[in-house]
C-alpha cells in the first residue's frame, strides 16, 4: 500500500505502444478468436461421434440402462438409435425397467418370449411422465415411424406429491428432463441458472456426451471432483488424487453387475409387498383434469403420434390389492377415464387385470413371476395381437 506512493509501476511489464491490457498474453485478435472457435466447435462436433465408434457398448436382447447410470440420457439415445426396426421398444418407468428383477425378468424379456417378436427394454429407473416426456422428446427420435409400447403407471397419480403438483418445494430425480418453464411444476424451485443449464444439457448434444463421460467413467461427477473423491474409510483417503485422470476412460460402457444383490429372485428385496405385514393404503388420488403427470402423458402420446409412431399403451399393472376398499371406486374411475381418453385418441390400449397379490413387490412393481404372467396376459390380448399384426 505504502509502496504505491513511490513505486506505483514497480514490475509491470508494459509495452510502449499500448495501455496496460492485463497481466497475461491472452489478448486474442479476431482472427485468433475465429480460429479458436472453429477448433472448439470442431472438437465439440466430432468428439461425440468419434467416441461412439471407439467405445464398446454391448447391449444384447435384454439390455437395459444400468441403474447406476440412469441419468446418462446420451447413452439412452444411443441405445434407442441402435435398435433395429424389427425390435419394439417398451418405454416407461421403473415398472418397465424392472426395479426388483434381473434383466431376464422384465416385461420386455417375457413379451419377447410370449409373442415371438423382439421387444427392447427402454425403461429408465425413476422416470415419471413429466420426465418421460422430455426423455422421449429430446432423446427418443428413434421412436419415430415404428411400433412403440408405452407403459402408463397410475402410481404417479396416487398423491399430489407423486404428481408433483404440490406447492411446497420437492426434490426429485431427472430434473433435467422436465420442462424448465417457471411455474409449470410448482414444486420444482430451481433458479434461472439451473433451469438454463438443464435446458442446455438436454438440447446441446455435446453436453449430453460430457455427462455420459462423467456418469460412466467418473462416478457421476466431474473430473475435478473425481480426483477429490473420498473413500469410505476412517480417516477417509483420496484414492484418485494421484491416479492418471485419463485412466478411467476404458472405452467400455459397463453393464449391469452380474450378481446384483438388490435385484432378482435371490435378493432380499424380491418379496411380495404384504410379506412383511403391510396393509392396504389410502391414496390421495389426483383427478385426471388436475394432474400434471397425466397432462404429460397426453402430450407424450401426441408427440409419439406426431412422429409417426404406432403406439400401444399398457395401462397398469397397478397393485389394486394395496388400495383400501373405500378408494377402489375412485381408482377405477380414474383408470376408466384414462382408458377412455386413450381410446378417444385411437391409441391401442391393453389393460391387464391386476396380478395376484403375491406377485407384487410394492404398489406398482411386479416380481419376476408377475412380469411373466403380465406378459402372458398382454400377449393373449386381442388388441395387442391386432396391433402387432398391423
Amino acid at each position: 500500500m505504502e509502496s504505491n506512493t513511490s513505486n506505483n509501476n514497480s514490475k509491470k511489464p508494459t509495452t510502449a505502444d499500448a495501455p496496460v491490457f492485463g497481466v497475461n498474453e491472452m489478448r486474442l485478435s479476431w482472427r485468433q478468436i475465429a480460429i479458436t472457435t472453429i477448433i472448439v466447435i470442431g472438437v465439440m462436433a466430432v468428439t461425440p461421434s468419434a467416441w461412439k465408434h471407439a467405445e464398446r457398448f454391448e447391449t444384447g436382447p435384454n439390455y437395459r440402462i444400468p441403474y447406476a447410470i440412469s441419468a446418462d440420457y446420451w447413452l439412452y439415445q444411443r441405445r434407442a438409435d441402435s435398435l433395429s426396426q424389427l425390435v419394439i421398444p417398451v418405454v416407461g418407468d421403473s415398472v418397465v425397467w424392472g426395479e426388483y428383477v434381473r434383466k431376464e425378468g422384465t416385461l420386455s424379456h417375457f413379451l419377447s418370449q410370449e409373442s415371438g417378436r423382439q421387444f427392447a427394454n427402454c425403461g429408465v429407473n425413476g422416470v415419471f411422465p413429466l420426465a418421460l416426456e422430455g426423455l422421449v422428446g429430446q432423446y427418443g427420435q428413434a421412436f419415430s415411424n415404428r411400433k412403440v409400447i408405452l407403459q402408463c403407471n397410475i402410481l404417479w397419480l396416487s398423491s399430489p406429491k407423486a404428481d408433483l403438483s404440490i406447492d411446497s418445494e420437492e426434490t426429485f430425480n431427472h430434473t433435467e428432463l422436465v420442462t424448465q418453464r417457471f411455474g409449470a411444476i410448482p414444486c420444482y424451485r430451481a433458479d434461472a441458472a439451473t433451469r438454463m443449464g438443464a435446458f442446455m444439457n438436454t438440447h446441446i448434444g455435446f453436453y449430453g456426451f460430457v455427462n455420459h463421460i462423467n456418469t460412466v467413467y467418473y462416478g457421476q461427477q466431474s473430473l475435478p471432483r473425481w480426483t477429490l473423491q473420498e473413500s469410505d474409510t476412517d480417516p477417509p483417503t483420496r484414492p484418485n488424487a494421484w491416479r492418471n485422470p485419463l485412466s478411467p476412460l476404458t472405452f467400455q460402457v459397463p453393464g449391469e453387475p452380474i450378481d446384483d444383490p438388490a435385484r432378482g429372485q435371490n435378493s432380499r428385496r424380491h418379496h411380495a409387498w404384504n410379506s412383511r405385514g403391510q396393509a392396504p393404503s389410502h391414496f390421495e388420488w389426483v383427478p385426471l383434469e388436475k394432474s400434471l403427470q397425466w397432462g404429460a402423458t397426453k402430450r407424450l402420446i401426441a408427440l409419439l403420434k406426431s412422429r409417426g409412431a404406432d403406439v400401444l399403451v399398457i395401462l397398469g399393472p397397478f397393485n389394486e390389492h394395496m388400495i383400501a376398499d373405500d378408494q377402489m371406486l375412485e381408482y377405477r374411475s380414474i383408470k376408466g377415464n384414462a382408458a377412455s381418453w386413450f381410446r378417444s385418441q385411437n391409441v391401442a390400449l391393453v389393460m391387464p387385470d391386476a396380478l395376484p397379490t403375491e406377485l407384487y413387490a410394492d404398489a406398482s412393481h411386479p416380481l419376476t413371476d408377475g412380469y411373466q404372467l403380465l406378459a402372458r396376459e398382454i400377449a393373449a390380448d386381442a388388441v395387442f395381437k391386432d396391433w402387432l399384426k398391423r
Partner: protein
Amino acid sequence: MLFHTLPFFVFMLIVLPGYYLLRKTAFWIPWLLAASYVFYGWWNPYYLLLIVYSTALDYLLVALMDHCPPPSEASAASKRDRTLNIALVTALAIGAALLGGAVLGPITLRPTLIVFACLDLMMALGAFFASRRIWLAISLVNNLTLLLFFKYARFVIENVNAVLGSRGIHLPDPSTLMPYGATYVLPVGISFFTFQSMSYTIDFYLGKATRERNILRFATFVCFFPQLMAGPIERARQMLPQFQKAPPFNPRNLSDGISLFLVGLFKKLALANYLSLYVDRIYDNPGKYDSPALIAATFAFAWQIFFDFSGYTDMARGVAKMMGFELMLNFNNPYLATGLGEFWSRWHISLSSWFRDYVYIPLGGNRKGNFATYRNLFITFLVSGIWHGASWNFAIWGILHAVGVMLTRELERSPFYRDRVPKLAKQAAVFAYVCFAWIFFRAATVADAFTVIRRIGMAARTSPQIPGLMLAMVCAIWGYQWLYESKVRNVLANRYMRIAIATAMILYLCFCSSGGGAFIYFQF
C-alpha cells in the same frame, strides 16, 4: 447475477446489442443504468432501494457542496445563494416530518426515522453554515453508517454484549432496528459501491473531480454493473469522464473484452472452484487434518482467492471493455512480489490505492517521520483488514500485513536485500508470509486459525492428498506468470501459443468445469 452463469450470458445478449444500438442516442446512459439495476436487483430487488438512496444522497450532497464557497474564499455568509436557503428550509421541514413520524408513526420505523432525522439535521447545518466540510461529513457519515450497520453492527454488538453482558448490559440485535421487520442481510457489493460513491464526494471536496450534473450519469457511475459487485473500485475522476460520451465502437475492444472474459472464466470455473473443493473440506474441520494437509490447503487457498477474485476482475474488465470502457488493473501477478510492500501494489490494486489515497495519505502518509509513517501504515492495514469483514480474523489478517510491511520496510530498501538476495528466495518468502496471513482470512474463527497454526507446527508424516491434477494446474499458472515476467515472455505472445492456450482453456471448461459457486469477495 454471476458472471459465470447462463442468465448473465442471456443478460449480455440483450444488453450489449441494445447498448450498441443506442450508443449514438441519448438513451445509452439510461440503458446502462437500467441494465445495472436489473443486474443488481436480480439478487434481491430490495437492495436497489439502498443503492438508489446512496446514489441520490451523494449526488445531492455534491450539488449542494457546489453551492458553497471553497474554504479558501471569503466567509460563507456573504456567499449564500438561494439554493442553500431552499435546502435549509426543506431540510428543516423534512426533519420536522421525520421527527413527527418517529414519535407518532409505527414503532418499527422509529429507529430508521431517527437516523434520517439526525442526517437531516446535519444537512440543515450544512445549508446554514454553507460549509463544504459538513456536506462531505454527511456523505462520509451516511456511507459509513450504511456500511457499519449492515456489515459490522452485529459483530460489534455481539462483542459488546460478550464484554458487558455480565454487568447486565445487553444491546439488541441490529435486526430489531429494521423497518417493518425486514430481513437484516448484508447487501451484496455494499463495501464496493459505498467506497466508489465516497470517492466522488471526497474528490469533489478536494477539487480533484468536477461535479456531475446528470444524475443518471452519476447513478451509472455508482452502479455500473461490470464492477458493481466486487470492484475494481473506480475513482470518479477516472470513470465519470468515460460516461460523458459513449465510447466509439472498436472491434478491438470487443475482442479484448472476450479475451479478458475467457481468462477470468477459466480462473473462476476451472481453478478457483476446483481449489475450493479441496480447501473447504480441510478448513471446515481443521482439527481432523495433519500438518501436510493444512499446509497444502493454505497454499491452495492462496491460489483459490487469487483465481477467484482476479478471475472476477478479469471478467468485469472484459465486460466493460466489450462496451468500450476501461476499468483499472486490479491484480498484477501478486505472488511474484519480492516484498510485502510490492505485494500490496500488485494485490487488489484498486482497494489498496483507495486506502492509500483516502486513509494513508490524509493521515500524513510518510511525510511526518518514521513513527507517524509506521502508525499510519498500521492504521491503514487494520482498516483494510476490517473492511474485508466483521470478524476478528480479518482484523488480525490486516494487523499481520501491517506488522509484516513495517518490519520489512527498511529491509526491502536495503541494497543487500535488493541486490544480494536471490529473487526466487524473496518471492518464496513473501508468498510464505502472505499464506500465513491467509490462514486467518480463511479460517471460520480465530480459534480455528490457531488450530491450523498449531497443527501445522506438529510434524506428521501423512499425505496431504492434494490431487496431482490440481498441483499441475497451479504449477502451470505459476510457470505462466513467471514466464510472463521473465526475459522470454515473447514465447507467450506467439499467436499459435495464444490459440493453443485459449483452445485448451475452453475445452477444459467444456469437459471438466468444477461447477458454479459465488465469488469469495461477494461477501465483502
